[in-house]
């Protein structure tokens, strides 16, 4: 398979996901290009996280196909899907660090489980990853309970990047961070994306992240992608929900100040 011809990192076609009688995603289609940062916006409870969790195989789907790096992803969480874990790193909203392991062990966990490394090399790689996400080596022996919110996100990012995955999924990476920390985190994701050549799929509500780091933004409403494109285009969109999202009072104020 010729990698240069694979233009898309993630292809989602006609995806239907629901719980009980409720349909959350209704024939949704979405393409994520290789090497781009795609921001996904949508109402709270509108299915953004559901879409992300379905793509990574945590939620079973009713119909539709999902391809990640050209490989089809199974419909239910099984070993095949889990095997794809080498191709992606996931940053969960609350970090999801293993609370019984230190920061260093958390970052080493995917390395330990997937590769045969010497302990020395594993320590070096773990520290390297931590320093890449802007933490100091002194932090490596702390437990997750001792970390601040921003540090937890950074450690979770380091763990997500441990295996150098080509795709990175971020679930509200800047939520709960102060604007400075959020800005730093955006810059960090931008830098890492460039240096490591990552494809980033980011669920976010942070308008600043959308404008500064995202190459394209997709808007999810009524279970479908109603608009997708660079931020400029989305601001022009005529869809009522997208208009309400980007031209509401809050958004207007923010955008005005950013100009």
């Amino acid at each position: 398979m010729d990698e240069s011809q694979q233009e898309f990192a993630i292809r989602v076609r006609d995806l239907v996901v629901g719980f009980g009688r409720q349909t959350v995603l209704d024939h949704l289609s979405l393409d994520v290009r290789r090497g781009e940062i795609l921001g996904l916006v949508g109402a709270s409870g509108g299915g953004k996280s559901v879409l992300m969790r379905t793509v990574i195989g945590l939620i079973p789907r009713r119909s539709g196909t999902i391809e990640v790096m050209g490989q089809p992803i199974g419909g239910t969480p099984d070993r095949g899907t889990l095997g794809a874990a080498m191709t992606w790193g996931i940053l969960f909203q609350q970090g999801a660090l293993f609370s019984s392991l230190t920061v260093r062990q958390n970052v080493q966990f995917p390395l330990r489980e997937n590769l045969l490394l010497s302990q020395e090399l594993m320590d070096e790689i773990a520290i390297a990853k931590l320093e890449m996400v802007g933490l100091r080596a002194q932090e490596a022996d702390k437990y997750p309970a001792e970390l601040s919110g921003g540090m937890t996100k950074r450690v979770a990012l380091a763990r997500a990047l441990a295996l150098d995955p080509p795709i990175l999924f971020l679930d509200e990476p800047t939520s709960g961070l102060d604007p400075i920390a959020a800005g730093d985190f955006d810059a960090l994701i931008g830098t890492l994306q460039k240096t490591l050549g990552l494809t980033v799929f980011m669920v976010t509500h942070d308008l600043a992240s959308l404008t500064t780091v995202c190459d394209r933004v997709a808007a999810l409403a009524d279970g479908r992608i109603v608009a997708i494109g660079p931020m400029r285009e989305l601001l022009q969109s005529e869809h009522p929900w997208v208009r309400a999202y980007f031209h509401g009072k809050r958004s207007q104020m923010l955008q005005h100040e950013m100009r």
Partner: protein
Amino acid sequence: MNSEPLLLATPTGDALKLRPEGPWTAANVATLETLSRSVGAEVDRSRIVTLDMSGVSALDTLGAWELEKLSRRAASSGRSAEFVGVSDHFSGLMEEVRQVNRHTPARAAATNPVLLRLNDLGKATIGAREDITIFLQMLGALFMAVIGVLRRPRSLRLTSLVYQLYRIGWQAIPIIVLITFLIGAIIAQQGFFHFRRFGAESYTVDMVGILVLRELGVLIVAIMVAGRSGSAYTAELGSMKMREEIDALSTMGLDPVDVLILPRVAALVIALPILAFIGSIAALYGGGLVAQFYGDMGPAIYIARLHEAISVTHFEVGILKAPFMALVIGIVACSEGLRVKGSAESLGRQTTTSVVKSIFLVIVLDGLFAIFFASIGM
């Protein structure tokens, strides 16, 4: 993509040219480590080391780090190392890797194992003192809460109390009945089996009656309740502590002891004597069934023997202990719950501690009561 990574070394005088080729990625890590190690001696010998990166087809952090380590090794002690031919899409990564692992933190000094043990022992001793303090503090807080309720009876959380009674009392009845029934039956069976040799079968009834009413009924029930409800209290209060619900209560001007702990402990104090009574009856019933089917002793004789053997004193001795045991279980469970810290692991540890500690204290308390009742002649 399937080709193996290579590392070509061309020494010229005291200069060394290293040319890594192929995919330098995590998937080939074993090969990479061997490769880097194999050129180690040559790198140490050479004054100038050049790393020609033009042959690398794929690179990730791990591969970049291996190369960076080689270059750092070469560049140590005044010698020089440089990368040439780094392609554009690897340069960012190489640049990033150059910055990391510059400051190795000092390893914690190895400590004497004997000192470590002594340290643990000292900590445990101080911890035991702290446990007693916390227990007494909780007892005091509960006492104050009870006084508050007596002064203003309307401040009692009746809904919560009834709900806790339902949970730890009513819902516990089936399992308590089953277990005490079996215990009663087992004791009776053992009694008949061994007393038969002396022809003293009829004394089995004395043994079952006295043992169950004075000691075992209440003890088994208390241990069951500690495991079933005490652990639930600790886990509930612990997760509320973790999610800052208890802090939220305090900031609203409510005392967590009034709102959460008093109804729970009070429910235990009310429910445990009732459960102990039901349990004792079930045990006596179990003993009776064994007497009929194993000991050839009809129900009428069993009840008559029971009537002669036991007095209301035996029952009082047993049932008087129950509220105190309930108090101990409740205080230990609630204070352990409040000691939970941020992590899920701490919740598990505190729940275990709560159960172990309350069962231990229940048994100690039972022993103290035995001495007390003996000395007052009950």
